């Protein structure tokens, strides 16, 4: 009886149950607050993500991302925000998407133009990729490579460094040593954008 694995591991099983209960309690207590923090960060980024043209950054205070932002959910469950400026002019869309990265889930925001045809910006909300390699997906120099890419075809990851080649192929250059993380982000963008475009085309048909 003493050799039985379950008997030997009773302490671990008991601890696992206790710790799971404690973690559940913490999750229940803090989940709303953490979600609010992420929501505030998302709203803070909306103005930056829908800037147009992207190389002329618009100061965030001229946008009312939190006050004038409509929000709806796509069929696949992606949150999409429609952003307006102070004058009430439609400035574009921001889609919240997530997917599996190299180490853990990656959560991103994708900025699109008004017709939803071109990527205006990308922001990494949450990631736990390898420090100094995969976590470079959050660096602006890499995120900018997505700007201007078309949503009508998949964005692919390539080793090409020439901007002209990448524009022609609708590709982004992979981060050296972090191809999996780079491909993961591209895949998340493609899946979310495809879902979003389906939703938009459904709406147009109804109109």
């Amino acid at each position, binding site marked *: 009886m003493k050799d039985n694995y379950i008997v030997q591991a009773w302490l671990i099983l008991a601890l696992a149950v206790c710790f799971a209960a404690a973690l559940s309690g913490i*999750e229940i207590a803090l989940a709303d607050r953490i979600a609010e923090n992420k929501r505030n960060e998302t709203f803070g980024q909306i103005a930056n993500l829908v800037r147009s043209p992207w190389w002329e950054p618009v100061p965030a205070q001229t946008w009312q991302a939190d006050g004038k932002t409509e929000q709806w959910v796509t069929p696949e469950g992606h949150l999409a925000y429609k952003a307006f400026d102070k004058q009430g002019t439609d400035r574009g869309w921001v889609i919240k998407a997530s997917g599996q990265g190299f180490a853990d889930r990656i959560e991103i925001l994708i900025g699109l133009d008004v017709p939803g045809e071109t990527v205006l910006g990308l922001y990494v909300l949450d990631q736990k990729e390898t420090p100094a390699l995969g*976590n470079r997906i959050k660096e602006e120099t890499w995120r900018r490579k997505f700007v201007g890419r078309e949503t009508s075809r998949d964005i692919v990851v390539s080793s090409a460094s020439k901007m002209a080649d990448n524009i022609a192929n609708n590709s982004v250059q992979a981060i050296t040593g972090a191809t999996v993380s780079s491909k993961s982000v591209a895949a998340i963008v493609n899946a979310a954008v495809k879902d979003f475009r389906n939703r938009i085309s459904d709406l147009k048909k109804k109109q």
Partner: protein
Amino acid sequence: MAKDGPAPLERFINGILPENPVYRQLLGMCPTLAVTGNMKAAMTMSGAVLFVLFCANIITSLIRGLLKPHLRILVFTLTIATFVTIADRLLQAFLYDMSKELGPYVPLIIVNCIIICRCEVCASKQGVLTAASDAVGQSIGFTLALASIASVREILGTGTWFGLTLIPADVPAKVWSTWSVMILPPGAFIALGLLLGAANRIGEIRQGRRAAV
């Protein structure tokens, strides 16, 4: 007392300098190098390590009589992972920006050798009071080490300390200019190497004095 190991006060004092986890035991090198670019990040990491080490040591000490030798590491890891997850969620809830800045280094506390080492060396063998004293002493030692490295890097790298400007921006470049390398990864190795060398030298001098007496 000899049978039970060092007393609580001895454990506490040892952790700060004589058995400093960074300068004497060379443990916890990952956060030591990665989050010492500025004092705020270093102190947040130290606080998280204090919380995890304190809780893990107490739980381990309380259940030390039930531990089976071949399953002890699994119990330590399970306990540490639980408190690291709690620390991570607390940071996300109350220090969101800092949580983003520290990124994966908070979850990586799970594999921080300092904590599993203290569970193995002290908490699994001694009483709760001793384990708690050991956790606080080692955490203070870790905090001092991180603070010393972060101070050097932040002051030399950006001219600030805890975000406060120490070297005004209008100081002519001929007089002083910040060393950007210090806030980059090579700066962490340079600062750690020099401070480790200094700590060893001080240790040698103290040993020499003791031998002379």
